[in-house]
C-alpha cells in the first residue's frame, strides 16, 4: 500500500524500495535512470573523511541526483499506469501550440480510450473542453508553479478512473523550459511546436527537444502564411535528438492525425 494515499502501489523505502526498482527495471524505458537512482542509495551516507585541521568538520562525498525524490515518485506513477495496462504520454509545448486541441480531435481518429491529466496555472478550462467532448479529464491547478512534477500527477491519478483507459495523456503546463527537467511518470514525451512559433524554437530550447520521443509540428495548415521551414526544424531535431520522430500535423488534415494515432499505437508498450 502506498502510505500517503492508500493506492495499491508501494513506495516504501528499504526492502520494498529494492523491489520497486526491479519493477521499473523491467518495464520502464528509463532504465538507466532508475538504475543510477538505486545506485546512489549506496552512497546515501557517503564516505566521511575527517579534516585533519578541524576535528569537528567533515567532508561528505555524495553523488546523489537532486531530483531523486521526484524520480522515485515518477517510477511509482509508471508502475501505477502499468498495473492498469496503460501507456502514458507527457505532452509539452509553449502555451497555445495546440495540445488541448490535438487531444480534442484525436478522438475522431482512434478507438483507443484515453484520459487526460491537465496542468495549468489557473482555471479548469482545458479539462472542461475535453470533458465536453466525452474525454475523461482531471485538472491540476498549479497556482504559480511553472511545471508539473511527479507528485502532482500522482495526486491527480487518484481522481481519474484508470480502469477503462488504454492510454493516458499528461498535458503539462505550457512552457518550453521547466517541464523538461521533471519526469512525471509517463512512458514517452511528446513535444509540440506550432508553425506560428517559428522553426528556431528547437535550437532555442534544446533541453526540451532533447527529451522528446516525438516532435509534432502543429498547425501545419498555416505553413503557407509563415516562414517556417519543416526541413530546418527536422534538421534541428536530428542534431539534438536523432532518435526522435517528427510528424507534421494539422487537425484539418485527417491523414496527419492518423499518423499521430499510428505512432501512439506503435508505442503502446504495455
Amino acid at each position, binding site marked *: 500500500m502506498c502510505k500517503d494515499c492508500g493506492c495499491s502501489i508501494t513506495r516504501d523505502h528499504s526492502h520494498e524500495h529494492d523491489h520497486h526498482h526491479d519493477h521499473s527495471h523491467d518495464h520502464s524505458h528509463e532504465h538507466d535512470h532508475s538504475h543510477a537512482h538505486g545506485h546512489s542509495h549506496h552512497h*546515501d*551516507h*557517503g564516505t*566521511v573523511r575527517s579534516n585533519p585541521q578541524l576535528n*569537528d*568538520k*567533515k*567532508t*561528505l*562525498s*555524495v*553523488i*546523489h*541526483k*537532486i*531530483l*531523486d*525524490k*521526484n524520480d522515485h515518485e515518477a517510477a511509482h506513477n509508471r508502475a501505477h499506469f502499468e498495473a492498469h495496462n496503460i501507456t502514458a504520454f507527457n505532452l509539452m509545448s509553449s502555451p497555445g501550440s495546440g495540445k488541448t486541441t490535438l487531444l480534442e480531435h484525436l478522438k475522431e481518429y482512434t478507438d483507443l480510450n484515453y484520459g487526460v491529466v491537465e496542468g495549468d496555472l489557473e482555471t479548469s478550462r482545458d479539462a472542461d473542453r475535453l470533458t465536453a467532448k466525452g474525454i475523461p479529464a482531471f485538472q491540476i491547478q498549479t497556482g504559480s*508553479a*511553472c*511545471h508539473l*512534477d511527479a507528485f502532482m500527477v500522482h495526486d491527480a491519478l487518484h481522481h481519474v478512473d484508470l480502469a477503462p483507459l488504454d492510454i493516458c495523456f499528461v498535458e503539462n503546463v505550457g512552457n518550453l*523550459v*521547466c517541464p*523538461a*527537467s*521533471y519526469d512525471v511518470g509517463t512512458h514517452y514525451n511528446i513535444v509540440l511546436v506550432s508553425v506560428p512559433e517559428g522553426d528556431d524554437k528547437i*535550437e532555442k530550447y*534544446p*533541453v*526540451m527537444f*532533447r527529451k522528446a520521443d516525438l516532435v509534432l509540428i502543429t498547425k501545419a495548415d498555416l505553413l503557407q502564411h509563415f516562414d517556417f521551414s519543416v526541413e530546418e526544424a527536422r534538421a534541428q531535431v*536530428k*542534431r*539534438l*535528438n*536523432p532518435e526522435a520522430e517528427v510528424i507534421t500535423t494539422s487537425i484539418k488534415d485527417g491523414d496527419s492525425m492518423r499518423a499521430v494515432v499510428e505512432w501512439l499505437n506503435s508505442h503502446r508498450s504495455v
Partner: protein
Amino acid sequence: MHEYSIVTALLEQCEQHAIANQAGKITKVVIKIGVLSGVEPALLATAFETFKLEGRAREAELEILHQELVLECQACQSTHTIKERSVICPSCHSYETRIIEGEELLLMQLELETDE
C-alpha cells in the same frame, strides 16, 4: 523558474544527510550542473541564498561545478567535449553517440560541522 523547486529538493537532501551524520551545520554544498540539464546556474544560486536561511545550511556556501557536454561516439569510439548543442560526433559525423555527461543535476559533496 523551476530553480526554486530544485533548490527546495536540494536543501531537503542536504538536511537529511546532515541529520544522518549528526551534523548541526552545513558549511558547504557542492553540486554539478550539466549544460543540458535545463537549469540556469545563476538562478539556482540566487534561489539557494534565499531558501537556505531556514535550516542547517543557513551559512552554507554553494559551489557549482559546470559540466560541459561530453559525447561518446559508438561509431568511431571517440569521446569529445563539445561547445555546441548537438549530438553529432565531431570526428566522424555519426549520429550514433551517447551523452555521457552534461545532462546531470547532482549533489556531489557536503561539508558538515558535527555536534559535539
